[in-house]
């Protein structure tokens, strides 16, 4: 009995407060994988905010959920006024005559106003047409795909299938949007039937077909292709040049030369070289670059007949490092000198790894410490311990936050891109060196691009921004 009363209460309450939905549209988002549909709806009396300046121009029209605007173009006017009106594209006369004036701002960067939000939430229902059920009415396999959509939202992106292999994508999907008081928007007990029974203010059915695209069509994609294929093409070009006998000259990079000196020093002192490839997994390109460098470093070490200790935090990195060091020894012609215990897994915790590596520094006293890869807070702990043990230290990372510490505590520091140049520089292979030359050319292109971009932007053109834009649509 009480339940019924409560339902009645809800019913009347809902009926009074709810504003019906005027139109619902379902469309596939642009450049989509084919598993999404965007459902958007409008209310009968949705408010739009129109910003009018003192020269009586509508500067901007903002959607119902906007409550502020930052004014970037202060050249045009000194004063602005915000009007609220239901019409999305009215004439100036309409705005001035019918709109509710909200906020006046003088000579400011930030305009803000207040406007009550609606006290109604939304739920989205989905149905797949099957056999006789075409989902035009309440029959069919309707289900609630999302409850508790916020009062200010007017669209929802639905995922029609998480794994199309198990749950095939259908030809057509039907959607309805139901309005309900915001208090009940998240009620877990509400299922499809109670939604319709209690609130009833459902929109009409709208249909949509997901669209799977094979090619993302946005301007930035072509710039991206240009960078990748430009670099690739230049690598081939310079490699061909080098094979025709043209010498590729690269300037001296002191940090990289120091690596070889460091190995020499360790050999003289009869102590090992410690190599730390950072603490990231293989997913990070710096770790991969570090692995390639380790190949060259271990080759040199094998040639000098010195010892190397590689201390790894990520198990999979240890396995790759093991393979890399083995190949280094092989290439140097000393495959038998390789000792698998020299590549060590220390611990998978950042600071335990740090403690273990400190232990190696204190107890095995490596003469040279090489830190190349991606480092975090442990950078300074390692570098300071290495300093206390009087090792020559060479560090290199593209992790901006840790560079200052390496710079302060190590003898040589490779900054950013230099890390990626090491393996090519050390190997002296023309094919690798040509990749350095290729990225140098791209660098000049970037500088040209930037200077043109600044000039264009200063004259109000955003063409260069668009060329670099990678957002959808």
């Amino acid at each position, binding site marked *: 009995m009480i339940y019924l009363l409560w339902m009645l209460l809800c019913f009347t309450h809902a009926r009074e407060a709810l504003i019906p939905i005027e139109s619902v549209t379902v469309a596939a988002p642009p450049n989509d994988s084919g598993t999404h549909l965007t459902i958007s709806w409008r209310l009968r009396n949705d408010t739009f905010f129109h910003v009018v300046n003192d020269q009586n121009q509508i500067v901007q029209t903002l959607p119902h*959920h906007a409550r502020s605007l*930052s004014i970037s173009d202060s050249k045009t006017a000194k004063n602005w006024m915000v009007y609220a009106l239901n019409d999305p594209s009215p004439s100036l006369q309409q705005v001035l005559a019918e709109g509710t004036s909200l906020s006046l701002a003088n000579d400011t960067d930030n305009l*803000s106003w207040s406007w009550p*939000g609606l006290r109604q939430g939304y739920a989205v229902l989905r149905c797949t047409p099957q056999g006789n059920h075409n989902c035009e009415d309440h029959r069919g396999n309707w289900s609630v795909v999302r409850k508790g959509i*916020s009062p200010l939202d007017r669209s929802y992106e639905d995922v029609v299938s998480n794994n199309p292999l198990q749950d095939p994508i259908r030809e057509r999907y039907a959607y309805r949007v139901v309005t309900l008081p915001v208090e009940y*928007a998240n009620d877990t007990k509400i299922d499809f039937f109670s939604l319709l029974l209690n609130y009833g203010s459902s929109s009409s059915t709208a249909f949509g077909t997901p669209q799977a695209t094979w090619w993302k069509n946005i301007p930035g994609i072509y710039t991206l292709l240009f960078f990748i294929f430009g670099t690739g093409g230049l690598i081939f070009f310079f490699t061909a040049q080098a094979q025709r006998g043209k010498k590729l000259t690269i300037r001296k990079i002191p940090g990289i030369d120091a690596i070889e000196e460091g190995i020499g020093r360790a050999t003289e002192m009869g102590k090992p070289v410690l190599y730390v490839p950072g603490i990231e997994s293989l997913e990070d390109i710096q770790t991969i670059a570090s692995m390639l460098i380790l190949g060259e470093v271990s080759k040199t070490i094998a040639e000098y007949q010195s010892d190397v200790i590689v201390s790894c935090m990520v198990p999979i990195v240890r396995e790759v490092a093991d393979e890399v060091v083995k190949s280094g020894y092989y290439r140097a012609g000393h495959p038998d000198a390789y000792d698998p215990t020299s590549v060590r897994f220390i611990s998978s915790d950042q600071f335990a790894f740090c403690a273990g590596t400190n232990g190696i520094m204190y107890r095995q006293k490596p003469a040279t410490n090489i830190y190349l890869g991606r480092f975090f807070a442990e950078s300074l702990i390692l570098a300071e311990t290495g300093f*206390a043990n009087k090792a020559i230290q060479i560090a290199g990372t593209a992790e901006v936050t840790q560079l200052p510490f390496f710079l302060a505590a190590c003898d040589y520091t490779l900054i950013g891109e230099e890390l990626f140049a090491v393996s090519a520089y050390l190997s002296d292979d023309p094919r690798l060196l040509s990749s350095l030359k290729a990225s140098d050319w791209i660098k000049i292109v970037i500088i040209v691009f930037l200077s043109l971009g600044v000039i264009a932007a200063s004259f109000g053109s955003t063409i260069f921004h668009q060329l670099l834009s990678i957002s959808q649509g």
Partner: protein
Amino acid sequence: MRQFLFSLQKLDRRIIFVGMALSIFIPLLLPFSLPFKVSKEVQATYDQIEALPKGAPVLISADFDPSSMPELWPFFQANLHHMFANDLKPVFVTLLPTAPPLIWPEIKKTASLYKKQYGEDYVFLGYKDGKELVIKNIGQNIPQQFPQDYRGTPIASLEMMQGIKQAKDFPMLIAISAGFPGINEYVLQIQGLYKLPMIGACTAVSGPDYIPFFKSKQLLGLSMGIPGSAKYERLVQSKENVQPFSATGAKSLNVLSLSHLYIIFLIVIGNFAYFMTRDMEDEDGPG
């Protein structure tokens, strides 16, 4: 003398460490006070809370863990005293699992100092897992997200929670956050949507990320790291009807000031010694 200066350049690291340890422990054990000015962000924080009418409910999200305690604890403590001294009615929530054992005893203790009753003057809703989603739901429906409080009482039976359904029902939201989920998520999910007046307290490292929110008035007040906490604590302590409490923020701030000055001092002597003995290079160079 020059020999001494020269050897000073290669000072044993452990002497530096001893100095650092002293600059950390002395201020914690022997409190003293260094002068500081209250920044506009912190003054705004204090003024906004002062401006609230008596009896107004305030939503406080205390999202810090033991590791960010030195920076945010003093703010939280001062904030508690501020709330109760002004007869405001705080509702506490937390999004970090490690926070309840830290904050709940302090809430109870401070409330008893001001003779406040649980359920009438303050409520602790406890911890909820779900990160951003919880914040979204706090914005829409608090009874649904928190059917019971920390002690297991249904919140419908708490006097203070009558009429509180959504974040909008609070005239003020205070987020004390150590990271994710925190101020950023609150601003995006609640403040931005409902135009709720909001104050933030964050760690110093994340401070620069939130300054734009303060400049755009999305955060009405902002306290960053130990300096912010200490300044706010000073403002609250100088209020008339506030019960005395220990100035942990000021202590930590002294540690910070001392240790920064200590490092600058080290740099200065290092350079002084270097310039006095520049001609005395030995084989492996100083330092």
